[in-house]
């Protein structure tokens, strides 16, 4: 029995190892290229090891006076991601609590309408939201990339499920002690829902940080771009300097990789659950 299983196990381990290498190799290639000179990056034979190891690309990218204000884009992306995540969690938690726990006229209609919009393909909102953002005077500003997406229904749905699964007894006890709805929400429900709030914060930040299509079209001034929009302009520059593009890619990747490693369990669990529930 053991002898029969072993070769397949070794094969499996080998396959897994090769696949893992295929998955990691592109990431290493980004990192390696970012430490090359442009000449080294574009001359054959290609090498995984930079000759010489150069920080030229990073110095160009991170200097404040350069044509490629990656540092500026980094802070734009960071600020937009934080504003969006805070906004999403704040408004969604309030709404989800009302929809999960409070009785009021029209609750079903509101919830039904919000959920129904989850099924509308996002492309429908593209043109009208561009025009609305233009009317608000938000084009080419941080509000265009932080506020409209906070109207999305996902977070409300997600948190309502989370609040609905919490035990009611603590809330009832707080009401008996004379707490009003706000105090119940703030002192009892939110602390209990911390894992859900953390997950939504991370997901909202990741989504905002990586968003591509919308920022490409609503932002124009080079200094106002986010990292993804900026990266695309770097690549489309007349003479593509690959070490600079890859240094930009590293700057765009490191924060989300760090965040992913830190919040891995939350992120993966929320994705895993989506299939079983849905």
């Amino acid at each position: 029995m053991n002898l029969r299983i072993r070769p397949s196990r070794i094969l499996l381990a080998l396959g897994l190892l090769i696949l893992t290498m295929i998955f990691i190799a592109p990431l290493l290639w980004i990192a390696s290229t970012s430490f090359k000179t442009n000449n080294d990056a574009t001359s054959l034979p290609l090498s995984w090891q930079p000759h010489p190891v150069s920080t030229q690309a990073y110095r160009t990218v991170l200097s404040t006076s350069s044509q490629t204000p990656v540092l500026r884009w980094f802070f734009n992306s960071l600020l937009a991601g934080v504003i969006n995540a805070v906004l999403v969690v704040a408004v969604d938690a309030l709404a989800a609590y009302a929809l999960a726990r409070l009785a009021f006229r029209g609750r079903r209609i509101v919830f039904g309408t919000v959920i129904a919009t989850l099924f509308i393909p996002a492309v429908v909102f593209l043109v009208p939201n561009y025009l609305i953002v233009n009317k608000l005077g938000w084009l080419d500003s941080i509000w265009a990339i932080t506020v409209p997406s906070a109207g999305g229904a996902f977070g409300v749905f997600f948190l309502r499920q989370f609040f609905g699964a919490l035990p009611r007894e603590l809330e009832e006890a707080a009401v008996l002690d004379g707490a009003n709805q706000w105090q119940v929400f703030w002192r009892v429900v939110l602390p209990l829902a911390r894992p859900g709030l953390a997950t939504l914060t991370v997901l909202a930040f990741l989504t905002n940080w990586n968003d591509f299509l919308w920022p490409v079209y609503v932002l124009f001034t080079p200094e106002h771009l986010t990292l993804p929009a900026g990266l695309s302009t770097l690549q489309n520059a007349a003479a593509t300097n690959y070490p600079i593009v890859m240094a930009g890619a590293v700057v765009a990747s490191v924060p989300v990789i760090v965040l992913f490693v830190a919040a891995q369990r939350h992120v993966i669990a929320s994705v895993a659950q989506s299939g079983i529930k849905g």
Partner: protein
Amino acid sequence: MSTRTSRELSAPGAALASRSADDSRSVRRNRRKVRRGWTATPYLFLLPYLVLFVGFVLIPAIYGFYISLHDWDYLLPHKPWVGFRNYTDLFKSNSRDGAAFWQSMRATGLFVVFSVPFLVACPLGIALMLNRAFPGRTFFRAVFFAPYVLGVAVVGVLFRFALDPNIGLVNFYLHKIGIHRAIPWTTDTPWVWISLVAMTVWWTLGFNAVIYLAGLQDIPQEIYEAARVDGASSWDSFRYVTLPGLRPVLAFVFTVTLLASANMFGQAFLVTQGGPGTSTRTAIMYITQTSFQQYRQGAAAAMSYILAVALILLSMLNFWVLRRRSS
């Protein structure tokens, strides 16, 4: 719908009223107080979200339709009403968008057809590999998921570089193993399709794999043991235990992947620029070009609705077929 909520709402007040019918005045006052206290709060909780929801989801969904009935250029003051012409024009082959829009729909359809089988099957293979107890399992799971947390911009510039015909990593290694032709991964068909599908698999495989893994772990171990006792081979238990057990998860993955592929934008925008010619220009790309480069928002809005209706019909059909199969 609304009757039930109002019944819930008035229940405490009604009980109160029947209990002390004689002093109806004070009861009414009490009831009003109770009601007001309980009704204002929920709306206040909802208000901030509803402002955003109405402003950026509900109104746009309808406003977009209004735009689609006009010859709309947001930079011009006059936006003439054209009725349904933006829609009917799409079905005339000699109109400006008639041929080009449907060509972009075809490109979208091709990408869906090419990518969905790989995006559904490859993650399942990975999930089956990871669905056994071995040291470092969570590490491998994280490795396969990691590309998904990178944005499409990073993935796009990376593959644009790695697939470069002359200085790309892929052709460099192909040359080493004896393929001396510089394959035009980013500039010629069918190579562009292979590139777009491969990079999408690399980028999003982990997402589907994690969903499968959760589904696999939901299948009771006893069923596998029972199958083994009955003399089932490992293929048998995959065919008769794993696949049926995964059916709802498979249906979910299939639908989500289908919609994601039909919305493909960044990969083609960054790696092929819609080329060669317009062969990989997806519907979303064509809509963005029409709206934001040619300033024809009316036509673009009409196309958005056509695409949206196509996507909704597709997912309904998909849902219907998968449900019929399982019943």
